[in-house]
């Protein structure tokens, strides 16, 4: 089975208390941030490697970004991917449609029975990219996949719905799946493994190699600006006798869609 795994690099913002917006108001200050592979993409790579171990074939990892993004490809190679391809273009500010066009062009040119994406990314979390690429490639897709069984010509998947229910599908290959967290347990990648992967070659391509001119990639959604959300202050304390406090809390939980 020929698998293509599309992965990305994100800043680790979970640990940061306050993020600073830069002077352009269209990006955040990134110099003190630590970068890592997108959480969902760890599960993508683990799933891809396990499938390859079981069914044989090839595994190609693809990413779109400047040369720091080689990190995520090294990780894929350390896990056993055969090839890593980076499209040398900073698309961090681009809308999903643009990125989808680029990836569609790359994927079209390589053998692909199964194309895997993470269900969403930690930074922007739009969850659109995989399904868009599938439509552009004109292959069936399923998103939020939490269970996957693959045979040579088809896959059986479980998609996650709300409230603990799953939807089950049988999909003919070639197909595209977006993988949700919890589908497997991503293995640890040792530093030694990554160092050894440094010696493997990466393919770097430019937009012109793909015959895509920057003008052809028109954004459909534009970023006007970034702002900090209004500040919260420690816990809002709910006062009153147990019954009253419980009632207020119940209302808050209902309003925020918890139940």
């Amino acid at each position, binding site marked *: 089975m020929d698998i293509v795994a599309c992965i990305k690099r994100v800043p680790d913002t979970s640990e940061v208390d306050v993020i600073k917006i830069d002077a352009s108001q269209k990006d955040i200050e990134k110099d003190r941030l630590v970068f890592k592979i997108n959480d969902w993409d760890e599960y993508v790579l683990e799933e891809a490697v396990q499938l390859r171990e079981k069914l044989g074939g090839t595994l190609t990892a693809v990413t779109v970004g400047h040369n720091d993004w080689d990190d995520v490809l090294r990780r894929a190679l350390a896990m056993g991917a055969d090839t890593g391809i980076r499209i040398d273009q900073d698309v961090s500010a681009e809308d999903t449609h643009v990125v989808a066009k680029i990836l569609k062009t790359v994927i079209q040119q390589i053998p692909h029975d199964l194309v895997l994406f993470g269900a969403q990314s930690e930074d922007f979390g739009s969850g659109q990219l995989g399904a868009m690429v599938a439509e552009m490639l004109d292959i069936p897709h399923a998103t939020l996949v939490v269970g996957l069984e693959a045979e040579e010509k088809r896959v059986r998947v479980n998609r996650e719905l709300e409230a603990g229910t799953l939807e089950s599908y049988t999909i003919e290959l070639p197909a595209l799946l977006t993988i949700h967290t919890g589908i497997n347990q991503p293995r640890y990648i040792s530093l030694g493994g990554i160092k050894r992967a440094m010696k493997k070659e990466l393919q770097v391509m430019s937009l012109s190699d793909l015959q895509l001119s920057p003008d052809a990639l028109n954004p459909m959604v534009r970023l006007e600006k970034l702002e900090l959300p209004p500040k919260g202050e420690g*816990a809002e304390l709910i006062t009153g006798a147990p019954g009253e406090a419980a009632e207020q809390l119940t209302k808050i939980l209902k309003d925020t869609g918890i139940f």
Partner: protein
Amino acid sequence: MSGILVVAEHRNKSLADIVHQMLSKGRQLADQAQVELLAVVIGRDIDASAAELARWADRVIAVKNDRLEEPLAGPYQKALSPLIRERKPKIVLMGHSSFAMDMAPSLSVELEAPLATDCVDISLQNGDVLVTRSIYNGKVNAIHSFAQSETVIITGRVGEFPVEDCHRQGQVEEIEFASEEGFNYKKFEGYLEEEAGGVDITQAEVLVSVGRGIKEKKNIQMAEELAEVLSGVVSCSRPVVDYGWLPSERQVGLSGKTVKPKLYLGLGISGAFQHVVGMKGAKMTVAINKDAKAPIFSVANYGIVGDILQVVPELISKISELKGKTG
């Protein structure tokens, strides 16, 4: 500006909860722009739902077909795209649900309509549609506009748009679903309910977490009841595992699991560093603790300083009561 179309997710003969939120927002936008609010519902037994939609929408389009009983992305997209091409709404609005994640992006590509997902706000300014998205772990808001286009597609985040009840009497229009396609390349095999036992707290959306403040093993029962009414799972801090009251698979924290639920409700949890490290990624944290100085109150969004044994039973009954009302 032409109308606003709300796509109503329909499952098990009723409208998904989020639909009312999107209808309310759609109604507000339609009133502001003085355009029509349309709603489309697709399925088999949809008469009751169509009537419900008509309370908000000026016009309800009911696409009835036996083969459309389940809200599946493929068939729904097939039904929606010609409808949208024909009616040309300015905004197509739906809740950001699992269903929407499967369908909206491919619909967007098929129609070449810009898509913004999981939006926390939608506004109209000088004829332009603007949306706000919450990014970077909720620490930054991004304001987006759309390139020139006849139709834009927006999915809204659950819980961001309050439901405002409405009592119109919109017109219901039934139309046919023309496609004969079998969708065999992506064949729906059925639903699966989650298995019981062997609990993975990292996958739960709601965690009711107990700490030392729960005092006795038998009080965990109360936490289980609360978890149940919230469709959640019981987790705990390390001392509870040390005492042997819960198995270690339930433990959240440094030497337990890292969790990122929608709601983390800490009962009698002091918020010691080793524990907080495992749950600070929770979207919303509520803490109930007798100690006003407990560190958990500086990481929680809401807190009640009180006796868990008194507050929790009240909470269970109030939640059950409210749930019973909205069914």
